[in-house]
Structure formats: C-alpha cells, structure tokens
C-alpha cells in the first residue's frame, strides 16, 4: 500500500533530475541494506561451513574464512548414522509424499470437478476442514492410528500423514485447474470411447500440468523441511530425516557444540529448497494465486 503511495508520489510530481537521482540512490541504498540483512544468515552459514573446523569453532568468530576446507562436511558424514543415511531418508520421504500427493490430488480434483455423486459436498468440506484444525493437536492420536496400521516408526506412514496435510490445498487447486479446462475437449474423447480415466489422461492432464507442478512443489518443500512429525513418529535413529539430525547435532559428542558441522548441515538442508524454489518460482506464485487468493 505504501508502495502505491510512493510510486504515485514519484509519478504525480515532476522533480528535477538531481532530486530524482538522490531519491533513486536512497531507494537502492536502503533496499540493498535490507536485502543484505535477509541474505546474511544464509550466506553466513555457507561461509562458516567452508572454514576449517577449528576456525568455525573459534571464539569470537572470524568474518571471512582464512582458508577453505571441507572438514565440516566430512565430520557430518561421521555424525551418528552419517549424513548419507539422513539424506537418503529425506529423499525417500519426499519422493513418497510428492508422488502420493500428486496422485491423490489429481484423481480427487478430477472427481470433484467432473462428477456428481452422493456425499460429494460433505467429502469436499471434510477435506477443507483439515486446514482449520491445528496440525500439532492431531499428531497425538495419529500416532496411535499409525500404530494400529503398523506404520509407526515408518517413513511410509509419515509420508501418508504428510500427504493428508497437503490435501486441502492440493485438492482445491486441482479441482480449480480441471474446472478451467473446457468440458467439450473431454466429452469428445468420451464419445470416442475413452473411459473416464482415459479422458483424464489424454485430454486434461497436459492442460493442468502447471497445477500439478505447484502441488508437487508445495509437497516437496513441506516434506523436506518437516520437523515435528518425524520427531514424533520416528523413534529409530536410522530412519531420522535431515531436520531431525540438524537439531540433534548440537547434542552430539558430549554436548560440545560443533558449529562448523551444524552450519554445514544447515547448508545441506537448505540448498535443495533454494534450488527447487528458484527453478520453479513462477509455479509457486501461480499456486499462491490459485490456491490462496482466488477472488
């Protein structure tokens, strides 16, 4: 809002070139300082992670690395099960969650968009209610349900829970995506003798791809970063995911904190998110528009 005010002020008057230059300079100075404040912790973690272990743990800390070293990353591979195991677990969890979310939401979104059946509104309403119910409060009974399904302490069980939490957003978004596809396209396929599933596959699937990518992206970011659910559902150290490992690092080796290793872990955990986000940025924004801000 203030932005509009500023922009409008800049446009309405006709200030001299000098004054405009000063204004631009001030704008970029303050914006750069703010951007630096926001990027600093990320850059700091990266800088610290490539210091030697001794330097990373020096008191007080040094600003720039005196020498580059991969020591901290190496000590990560020696931590408990080794970073490789945690990475693998996290990848497996993400894969299951993303694939599961996409399948359930594409099928469900299509069903809600194109078919009439009894209980449709009830089911759709129940799915959206998941948003209203605080996530943390339902983990406790979920723990018991997973126990009955023999899915406690299992990455599959955890993935199912994460898929469930993605449903309100995913179903809503996929339903809207399918509704924006003209029915006539599919009807033609149906007349040509396609089954319902065939129509979905041939005609709609390509058109709704952006929606699918958005759903997959959100599922990935959530499952990669999720901390509380793995902490509660997994009790076997060999199954821990990266976020759980990160928090455990500080209690490693008799409570002696290894700052370098911790920062290296942070870097490993955040790089996939940054890369995936930067690559798929426009789907993220379009997802926000469709999913959260229709109107």
């Amino acid at each position: 809002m203030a932005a509009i005010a500023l922009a409008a002020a800049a446009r309405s008057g006709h200030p001299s070139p000098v004054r405009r230059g000063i204004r631009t300079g001030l704008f970029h100075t303050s914006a750069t300082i703010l951007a630096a404040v926001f990027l600093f912790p990320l850059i700091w973690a990266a800088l610290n992670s490539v210091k030697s272990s001794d330097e990373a743990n020096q008191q007080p800390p040094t600003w720039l690395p005196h020498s580059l070293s991969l020591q901290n990353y190496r000590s990560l591979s020696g931590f408990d099960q080794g970073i490789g195991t945690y990475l693998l677990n996290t990848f497996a969890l993400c894969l299951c969650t993303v694939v599961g979310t996409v399948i359930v939401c594409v099928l469900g979104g299509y069903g809600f968009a194109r078919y009439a059946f009894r209980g449709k509104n009830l089911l759709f309403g129940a799915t959206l209610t998941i948003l209203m119910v605080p996530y943390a409060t339902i983990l406790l009974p979920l723990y018991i349900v997973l126990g009955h399904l023999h899915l406690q302490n299992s990455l599959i069980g955890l993935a199912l829970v994460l898929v469930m939490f993605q449903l309100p957003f995913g179903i809503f978004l996929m339903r809207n995506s399918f509704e924006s596809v003209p029915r006539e396209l599919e009807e033609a396929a149906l007349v040509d003798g396609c089954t319902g599933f065939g129509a979905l596959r041939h005609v709609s699937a390509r058109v709704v791809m952006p929606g699918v990518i958005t759903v997959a992206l959100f599922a990935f970011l959530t499952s990669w970063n999720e901390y509380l659910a793995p902490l509660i559902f997994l009790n076997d150290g060999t199954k821990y995911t990266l976020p759980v490992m990160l928090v455990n690092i500080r209690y490693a080796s008799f409570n002696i904190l290894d700052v370098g290793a911790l920062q290296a872990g942070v870097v490993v955990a955040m790089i996939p998110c940054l890369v995936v986000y930067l690559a798929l940025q426009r789907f993220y924004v379009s997802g926000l528009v469709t999913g959260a801000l229709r109107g």
Partner: protein
Amino acid sequence: MAVTVLTSRPQQARTPTVGPRRRSRAGSASRRPAVGLAFVAPTAVLVAALFLVPLGILVYMSLTNWPLLGSPTFDGLDNYRQLGQDDQFLGAIKFTLVYTAITTVVLFAVAFALVAISSTRRKGAVFYRTAFFLPYVVGTAAASSMWWVNSNDQLGVFSKAIQAAGITHQPPGLLATPNRALFTAIALVIWKFVGFQVMVLLVGLQAIPAELYEAARMDGATTWQRLRYITIPSLRPTLALLTILSVTGSLLAFDQFFVLTHGGPDNSTVTVVLALYNKAFQSFRLGNAAAEAVVVLVVLVLVNMVQLRLFREREK
C-alpha cells in the same frame, strides 16, 4: 471476493453438475457417479483414516486417563478440570497470546515496508523481492538451528556483530533473559516469514486493475485518497487471509521455540503447542495432553470463524 480457500460455496455455484442432457450426449457409461466415487476414493480413505478417526480418538482420549501402557480408563471431564489449575498450561496460553499479538503487528509493519520496496518498477525490485523471500523456503528447523548458533554469546555472529557495532561490550546474551529470548524468537520469525506476506501482498496488488488508478487520477484524487479508497478496499481479502494465517500460525508456534529457546530460560517461552508436546511425549500424560489439544482446536476453529465473519461483514 472472499477467502475462498476456506469455503467451497462460490465455486459450487459456478459448477454445472452433470445433468441428464449432458449424460445422454456424452455416453452414460462414462459419467456414472460410481466412476466419480472411484476418483475420490483415495481422498476419502486418507481423510477418514488419518483425519476424522484421529479427531474422534482425540476427543475420546481427552475424556480418559490414558497411560502409556495398559488400558485407558474413562475419566469424564477430569482432564478438563485439571487444565484450569495447570499453571504451566495457563502460563503457556498467556505467553502464546502475547507472542501472537506482537508477531502479527510487527509482521505486517515490516511487510508493508518491504512491499514498498519490491513493488516499484525500479531496476532490482525482483532481486530485492527474492532476497526477502528466500528465508521462507528454508525449513524452520534449519533456520532455528542457524539462529541458535548465531545467538550464542561466544560463538555467535549476531553477538559479535552487536559488540562490533558498539551497542554493548558485554556478551549480549540474546537468549539469556525471557524478554531477550522472546525478542530473538520474534526476530527469527519475522526474518523467516515476512517474505511470504510480501509475496502474497504483491499478488494482491497486481490484481487491482490499473484503470482504477487512472480514473482516480483523472478525477484529481490525491495519493492518500487513492490509497484509502482503492488500494485498501481492494486488498481487504488479502489482508484477511494474511491475518488469519499469521494469527493461526503464531498460536500454533512450536518449531522455533523448541529448537531456539527450548522453552527457556526458566520455562518463560513455552508456547501452548510446546506445553502440549512436553505433556504428551515427556511426561506421557496423554489424556491431559489430549484435553489441551481439544481446547486448542476449539479455540482455533472459533478464532477462524470469528475472523472470517468479521472480514466478510466489513466487505459488505
């Protein structure tokens, strides 16, 4: 214009259901309700097994004495009565409310300032916007771990920077007192989440038709009038959504406190969800924890409903 993410109404009205005419044209075999049910079956199974059933169990648990081993015994409303005398829970409620109020206000204030920067047409706006948003995609556990180390008196770069800036020559103890711990946690939350607010506000701003501003300018509206009569009313649904997300998210804060302050110092930063977690998974008083969860759940649903209604009414 409504926060349709929480309701299905407006959409439903637009969707023509499959009528008989259509069915006969498209071939009745392909639009049978049974096929539709098959499509939504996975959703139904997940929602039932992992949402509705646990919800039922939660309510049942809250009415029982549920030990970790052995069978639960029915307790009636005992767990709820105990909540009233549970100082830790009551303290957690108070802390969470204070935290929510401060966070929501500060988040909006910072977000508006950052929107002013990222919505200009100047060069570099996209870079600034991305810089503000990047912390949001980093996980809370990673972000909180980072801030925990950086706030360390001897090893942390925040402490070093504060001393280098000459603000204090002592170690600043960023997590040492209740107020400082709260301040550091709020700083973390602003850093991590404000980018999301900025992004959503930008999307909202872009949706306002440029003609509105053109027309207003031709009519000689001042900057303030354009802000007051075009921008703010048009952004109302966006602001409503962000308020709901911010209030709900803050009331349920867990990760940042669990990792950054661990509820300390002296249990001064225990949020409601952290208290709930401790009760369930540290002291294993599951019935008590379930009662707390039910209370939190009911309060949140009410808060959401009240907020939605408030924003709806103002829209009219």
